């Protein structure tokens, strides 16, 4: 009997402990708690309604449609940012590139210079150039990524404002184009309307998780952020790795911005303002270290959902939307305490 209980302990304990020690565990629990709490709160409100319904409005098809429309767009930026931050750098220009890329594409199209598809390719190429410049300044001139990407934030935003004179670009004739169908075509699962951007987001998630965890590149990315000197001494091309990740980050932002402009039928030169901090918050909540060396794509997906569900849920519950930032701040602080305590427990005293 003693033997069987010991066996039981041996079988369950390590795997359970491993699960709890995983950096994604805290965010997962928080996300579940959020969903449960918001479902409960919105169904109670519904119960006081004369047209009595117990079904939580938070889980209604309309709300899930809402939730899933914008989430993939921020999520794509967060995926690129996760790999970049794992390599020890970050990118403040993502929000500006998000706005600028859409402006570039629509300007090319509206002036009749190119078709929408060519405009898309050109906008993506410009984002590649932006990422390359960011990476080049950081790796070659050794200027901290904070300063380089802050500069790029202003350059890209300023360009978007200058090109458009501050006015939104016309976007309404996107409907019939192939590009818009590929990027944000709609279809329905039951009553929930799904945009193609969600499919792309899931695809990008799988690819980037694979790259980070299973590929050689992932080892290089983590090593670049963990100890660049050691990595270089081993022949890892740290500079090239970082430049490519800056390009990836800019491309993901541009792609997300273009997707967003087609979905909401508006290319506003100010769109994407402030996304950089929200995205960085999502990434660190998911357990990626700000200083680099450790990152998790799955954690980032959880982080994205946590913040989007929070924003959505708060409004549904009836808390003024302006209070949103208080909750975000509290979540970041709480999660950082959790991650650092896990790191202390598992990292050192073994």
């Amino acid at each position, binding site marked *: 009997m003693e033997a069987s209980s010991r066996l039981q302990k041996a079988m369950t304990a390590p795997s359970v402990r491993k699960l709890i020690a995983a950096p994604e565990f805290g965010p997962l629990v928080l996300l579940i708690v959020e969903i449960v709490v918001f479902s409960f709160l919105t169904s109670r409100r519904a119960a006081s309604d004369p047209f009595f319904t117990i079904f939580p409005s938070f889980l209604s098809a309309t709300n899930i449609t809402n939730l899933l429309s914008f989430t993939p767009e921020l999520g794509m930026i967060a995926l690129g940012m996760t790999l970049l931050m794992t390599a020890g750098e970050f990118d403040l220009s993502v929000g500006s590139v998000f706005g600028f890329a859409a402006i570039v594409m629509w300007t090319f199209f509206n002036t009749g210079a190119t078709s929408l598809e060519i405009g898309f390719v050109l906008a993506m190429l410009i984002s590649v150039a932006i990422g390359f410049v960011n990476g080049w300044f950081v790796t070659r001139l050794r200027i901290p990524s904070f300063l380089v990407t802050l500069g790029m934030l202003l350059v890209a935003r300023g360009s978007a404002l200058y090109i458009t004179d501050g006015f939104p670009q016309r976007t309404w004739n996107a409907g019939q184009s192939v590009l818009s169908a590929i990027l944000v075509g709609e279809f329905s699962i039951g009553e929930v309307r799904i945009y193609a951007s969600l499919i792309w987001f899931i695809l990008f998630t799988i690819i980037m998780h694979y790259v980070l965890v*299973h*590929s*050689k*590149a*992932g*080892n*290089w990315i*983590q*090593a670049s*952020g*963990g*100890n660049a*000197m*050691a*990595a*270089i*001494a*081993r*022949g*890892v091309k740290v500079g090239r790795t970082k430049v490519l990740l800056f390009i990836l980050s800019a491309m993901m932002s541009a792609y997300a911005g273009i997707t967003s402009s087609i979905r909401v039928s508006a290319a506003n030169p100010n769109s994407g303002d402030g996304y950089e901090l929200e995205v960085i918050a999502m990434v660190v909540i998911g357990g990626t*270290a700000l200083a680099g*060396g*450790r990152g998790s794509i799955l954690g980032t997906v959880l982080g994205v959902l946590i913040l989007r569900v929070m924003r959505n849920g708060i409004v549904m519950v009836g808390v003024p939307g302006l209070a949103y930032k208080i909750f975000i701040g509290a979540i970041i602080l709480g999660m950082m305490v959790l991650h650092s305590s896990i790191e202390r427990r598992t*990292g*050192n005293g*073994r």
Partner: protein
Amino acid sequence: MATGELVRMEHIYKNFGSVQALNDVTFTVGHREIVGLVGDNGAGKSTLIKILSGAHPATSGQIYFDGKPVEIKNTWDAIQLGIETIYQDSALVPQLSIARNLFLGREPLTGPKWLQRMDKRFMEEQTRKLLGDLGITKYINPDTPITSLSGGERQSISIARAMFFESRLIILDEPTNNLGVEETHRVLRFIHNARDRGLSCIFITHNIYHVFQVVDRIVVLRRGKKVCEADPKHTNIDDIEKVITGIYDTLPERSAG
């Protein structure tokens, strides 16, 4: 030298702007030889080693490897020649597992090439085997992150990695810094083992007591110049110390030879 030379750095000069960091230094390492490179701060030890490991180029001078003239433009060139540099307590990436560190920069791949998938099973097997060879008594899992290891274990793993990939020359930068007495001895023993398996080592340190225990030859740099070479069996520590600090210009006659 009867066994022939593995590395010969001849008439090396290095200027940083107007500062002359190295002034006509000729430095050799034989096959299966452990050379201690000692000198005060700013004597030029690291500069010399960085030139050999490809971190920065010499202003002038020629390097020979295995008797052939070579050009070392970057760290990759050095690695290709079989020169492995282990910087003080930073040769490993702390967040990565032992297995990932061991194969960093030389990841074995499996499956279709375009997928660039690491062969983790092979990595873990080899790591387990290597940890066994190291004689690390307690059981350590290959996916343990480096942060969980002691300083001596880390140094041993760095050196073992160089041995595993059949490097020919290991450059150790202050390998016994921040180590306890027991751990220091283990690392020094490890360096000896590496030599017995056919490797050559350059051992850079401030601590000439550690150098004396393991090296076959000591080279002293002072202010960018090589001031003496000595066999530790026929030299005493005090004399070497005086040469390093500049009290003696070079070794006195009685201890040389």
